[in-house]
């Protein structure tokens, strides 16, 4: 006797309960539901499997699924926490939470550090910064002489690498960012505050009473 589910509710792969996600992130339940509308759009654009593949991420960002970009690839890899080559809904929401205007600055600083630590060694090495600088110049169709590049690197490291060991560790990065706060501007998306108006998910989609949010 008693209540039982006749059939478990079939959720698409990669879906996660908005109430749980709201509890763990800077988003409200309605905001998570709005993000799900965006997620569905992006994750179905090339391969309709409820997961964001790299081409779909590039398509969403550049309107071009074949555009190779070192930085977009790094962002993709960081969003792909489980490192299985795809971004599921949970990873999408948890990663975007770092970009919320109310997210902790420390989380933004840490995300940026891991972004720039290309080889994931726990340090931002001079070679990595050089590689990123050259990538940026190439994608902007600009060239600078090697001499100028080295000068920029020298100046950057003189400023950031206070322990003088040719690489920037987490502590140096944190101090460097606090002295140069404009470096964190990419780490906040003010748009996330208006997400429920941009991607309305209608009342009958809601799993939770409005009163409960």
């Amino acid at each position, binding site marked *: 006797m008693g209540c039982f589910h006749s059939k478990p509710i079939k959720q698409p792969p990669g879906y996660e309960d908005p109430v749980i996600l709201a509890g763990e992130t800077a988003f409200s339940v309605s905001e998570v539901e709005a993000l799900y509308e*965006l997620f569905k*759009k992006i994750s179905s654009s090339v391969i309709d499997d409820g997961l964001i593949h790299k081409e779909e991420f590039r398509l969403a960002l550049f309107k071009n699924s074949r555009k190779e970009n070192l*930085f977009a690839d790094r962002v993709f890899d960081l969003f792909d926490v489980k490192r299985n080559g795809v971004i599921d809904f949970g990873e999408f929401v948890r990663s975007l939470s770092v970009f919320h205007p109310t997210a902790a600055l420390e989380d933004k600083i840490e995300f940026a550090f891991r972004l720039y630590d290309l080889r994931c060694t726990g340090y931002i090495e001079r070679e990595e*910064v050089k590689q990123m600088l050259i990538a*940026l110049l190439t*994608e902007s169709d600009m060239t600078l002489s090697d001499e100028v590049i080295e000068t920029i690197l020298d100046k950057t490291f003189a400023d950031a690498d206070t322990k003088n060991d040719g690489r920037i560790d987490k502590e140096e990065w944190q101090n460097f960012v606090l002295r140069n706060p404009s*470096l964190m501007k*990419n780490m906040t998306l003010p748009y996330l505050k208006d997400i429920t108006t941009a991607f309305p998910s209608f009342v009958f989609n809601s799993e939770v009473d409005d009163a409960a949010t």
Partner: protein
Amino acid sequence: MNAFQIISMSPGLDLSGLFQKHKMKLQGDKMGRKGYLSLSAEIFEVASSLHMVELRKLDGDTLEYHKFEKNLSTGLKDIVWLTEVNIAKSIDKEKQQMQSL
């Protein structure tokens, strides 16, 4: 200028693009009074059969822009419900009717 300031200019690090759905930039092909007319169009899906298009002038002569808008709404009059001009006109009409009471 430090390396990270330069690096952070990459569009690959600007995730606002993920949210810019259906946004387009259109540019005229003829030189106008103040350069080429360029405008942005953002499309919002209010319901599956109802879309809202927001047009904004980015560059060029304002009068030419208004002319373009008028041509566009005349051309689309069979499928367009309302434009800002229509709304303004109907508000004026109501005001006039109330004043004559």
